[in-house]
């Protein structure tokens, strides 16, 4: 099979699945409850593309394959085609999207069982996969942008999936609107690139882009970065992601942890030669990434909603990836993206399994007559779940350890590689040590909040009402199988990028695959590796120690004191804790700085303008027309002969003109 057929298969199957699930559900209500059929179609439309990508991956010979299907628009110098590119970077991304995506589809079959919107859910999910594949496979910025907006749309639809609850719709709107800010900047960057280079194809951009005039290049990369902060939830546009947890949990795992939120990283990695040439913006990216990482990690410690903890953890880990991008380690950012997709996907699915179990508890409570308030996502009502949900517990633990950076698990390798590269870059820039330090502190916080979340959920005694009588059950196999697969990947996923201390970096497979010094598409800083091997051993040991110490301390604190320890923390850190708990008042600041002034100025400034100037103009037109008609209406005498007279006079005039004119 040739590449272009395979690309068509990869792209069109998810679209076909979306259309099938959507249209069948819409027009044949009888089939809506056929969960087996819809789940099978929805899942296989992602698994088959995964196999196709795997085939392409195994037969890839190192040269980028570009296939153009159709010229979308051609106007003057602008020519945009539906062109797709298979190279190392897009292959890695596509494998993650379809692989993790397929597992999460399977998981959703179990998780969404019995939901009246089952068909709708799978239609949206397949639509998301289609858009995401356009994003990562597109060969020009316009196709990428098409996918970029497509994933935004499906994210909106899925966050607001249970739209009867106003809170969910509001969260969906928030995500959509905040992303719009970033998308606007992305568009501006595209316009600038087209003005400067006359093309939006990656081939042209990557070759001619870096030699652009510095000022323009800085502006372009800055705008691209703002676009990326919107999609990837970085300061200042991160507040939509925690709210996006209103969607069903598989959505949080797929869109808001594993794939969509990493598309900002993908954009920067794809255009890495341009980003590398804009040193000043690199510093900004690294610092913003580091600050986001530590800020989100501190918030995560204070949250009680199991999904909120993971949401802030995702923001924090994305911050790490931006940090890596900022110090020029693009391939490491992609490496962390891959391992993060594994362990964070696993954690989210595990939390979904827990919530599934807690909903069970909620139903049993209601049927036993206890109709008190119960939040199935609140860790304060969980505890002791390890007895009831062994598979969920073990995979959650593995993935949590991987996230914390326990040695030999995947997160350890990718996170330490990021920190090492930050440390290494300090010899050529003056922000490397700063972001490295923040990264180290964040690593400790990560270990603490992850352990807290695990211990509060699975260890200790059950804390829900009537815990003696009511017991949750383990989830069905469709949910535990993806958990196990992702759990195992969280263990072994790190071995695709072993650090330099082993075999002088020859075993760093992903680096050799992606890096441009080895023929890959991702640019790298020139002239590196000036840190002694012994130093790297020390850094590695430091990272491992911090992770182990963090986990150990938090484990002791929380298994001994349980929930009460949060109060101890609150007492000890005082206002710092409260600030973190209230999410640094970012939402409130936006409310005060942007929303309120906007509404205020609309009421005071633009309201009267609209009333008197805009409406006034419209009214004036109507008024003049009416005045004129007041005079002119007397022409309409209603007597036929007057009209005939007008015709005759007209004919005479024409005749005179023809004869004498």
């Amino acid at each position, binding site marked *: 099979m040739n590449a272009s057929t395979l690309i068509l298969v990869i792209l069109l199957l998810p679209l076909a699945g979306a259309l099938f699930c959507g249209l069948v559900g819409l027009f044949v209500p009888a089939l809506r409850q056929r969960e087996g059929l819809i789940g099978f179609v929805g899942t296989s439309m992602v698994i088959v593309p995964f196999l196709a990508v795997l085939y392409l991956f195994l037969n890839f010979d190192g040269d980028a394959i570009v296939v153009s299907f159709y010229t979308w628009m051609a106007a003057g110098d602008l020519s945009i085609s539906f062109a797709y590119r298979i190279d190392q970077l897009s292959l890695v991304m596509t494998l993650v999207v379809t692989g993790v995506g397929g597992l999460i589809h399977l998981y959703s079959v179990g998780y969404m069982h019995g939901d009246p919107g089952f068909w709708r859910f799978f239609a949206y999910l397949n639509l998301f996969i289609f858009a995401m594949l356009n994003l990562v496979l597109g060969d020009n910025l316009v196709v990428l942008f098409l996918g970029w907006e497509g994933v935004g749309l499906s994210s909106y639809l899925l966050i607001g999936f249970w739209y009867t609850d106003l809170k969910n719709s509001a969260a969906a709107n928030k995500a959509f609107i905040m992303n719009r800010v970033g998308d606007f900047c992305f568009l501006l960057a595209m316009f600038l690139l087209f003005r400067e280079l006359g093309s939006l194809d990656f081939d042209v951009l990557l070759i001619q882009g870096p030699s652009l005039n510095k000022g323009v290049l800085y502006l372009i990369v800055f705008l691209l970065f703002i676009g990326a902060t919107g999609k990837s939830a970085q300061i200042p546009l991160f507040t939509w992601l925690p709210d996006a947890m209103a969607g069903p949990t598989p959505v949080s795992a797929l869109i808001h942890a594993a794939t969509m939120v990493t598309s900002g990283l993908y954009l920067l990695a794809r255009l890495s030669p341009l980003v590398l040439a804009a040193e000043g913006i690199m510093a900004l990216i690294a610092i913003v990434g580091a600050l986001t990482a530590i800020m989100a990690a501190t918030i995560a410690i204070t949250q009680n909603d199991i999904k909120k903890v993971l949401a802030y953890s995702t923001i924090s880990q994305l911050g790490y990836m931006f940090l890596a991008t900022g110090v020029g380690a693009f391939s490491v950012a992609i490496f962390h993206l891959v391992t993060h997709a594994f362990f964070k996907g696993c954690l989210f699915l595990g939390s979904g399994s827990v919530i599934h179990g807690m909903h069970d508890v909620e139903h049993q409570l209601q049927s036993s007559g206890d109709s008190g308030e119960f939040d199935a996502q609140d860790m304060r009502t969980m505890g002791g779940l390890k007895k009831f949900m062994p598979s969920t517990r073990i995979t959650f633990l593995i993935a949590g350890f991987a996230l914390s950076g326990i040695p030999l698990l995947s997160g350890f390798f990718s996170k330490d590689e990021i920190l090492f590269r930050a440390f290494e870059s300090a010899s050529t820039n003056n922000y490397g040590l700063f972001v490295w330090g923040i990264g180290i502190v964040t690593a400790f916080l990560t270990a603490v909040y992850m352990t807290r979340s695990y211990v509060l959920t699975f260890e200790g005694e059950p804390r829900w009402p009537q815990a003696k009588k009511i017991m949750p059950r383990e989830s069905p196999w469709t949910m535990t199988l993806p958990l196990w697969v992702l759990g195992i990947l969280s263990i072994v996923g790190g071995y695709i990028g072993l650090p330099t201390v082993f075999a002088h970096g020859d075993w760093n497979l992903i680096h050799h695959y992606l890096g441009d010094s080895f023929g890959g598409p991702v640019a790298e800083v020139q002239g590196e590796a000036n840190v002694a091997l012994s130093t790297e051993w020390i850094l590695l040991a430091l990272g491992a120690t911090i992770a182990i110490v963090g986990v150990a301390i938090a484990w002791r604190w929380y298994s001994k004191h349980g929930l009460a320890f949060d109060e101890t923390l609150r007492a000890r850190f005082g206002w710092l804790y409260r600030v973190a708990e209230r999410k640094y008042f970012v939402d409130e600041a936006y409310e005060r700085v942007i929303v309120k002034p906007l509404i205020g100025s609309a009421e005071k400034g633009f309201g009267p303008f609209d009333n008197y100037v805009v409406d006034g103009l419209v009214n004036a037109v109507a008024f003049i027309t009416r005045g004129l008609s007041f005079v002119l*209406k*007397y022409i*309409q*005498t*209603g*007597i*036929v*002969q007057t009209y*005939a*007279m007008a015709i*005759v006079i007209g004919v005479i005039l024409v005749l005179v003109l023809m004869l004498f004119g």
Partner: protein
Amino acid sequence: MEVTLNWYLMLSALLFVIGVLGVLFRRNVIVILMSVELMLNAVNLTLVALAQNMGDPAGQILVFFVIAVAAAEAAVGLAIIIAIFRNRLTVDVTEINLFKY
């Protein structure tokens, strides 16, 4: 004295002007209808005269069409006038002014 083309044309112009003036200034709808017929026949006269003068029978054929159409027009016109008269008991056009402002 020989009757030349000009005589015909002048006669038909005269008839046409009489027709126009009749349409514009008479008040009786039936007279207006007759004036319209007069204008049509003035045109017919022109057509016949010119056809004879140029040796082309197409003009004469056209006249038959005009006569046929004029007959139809008279039939419809008279029917309308009868309908109006039944409704308003008048055939004075200055009183038929429903479309007045």
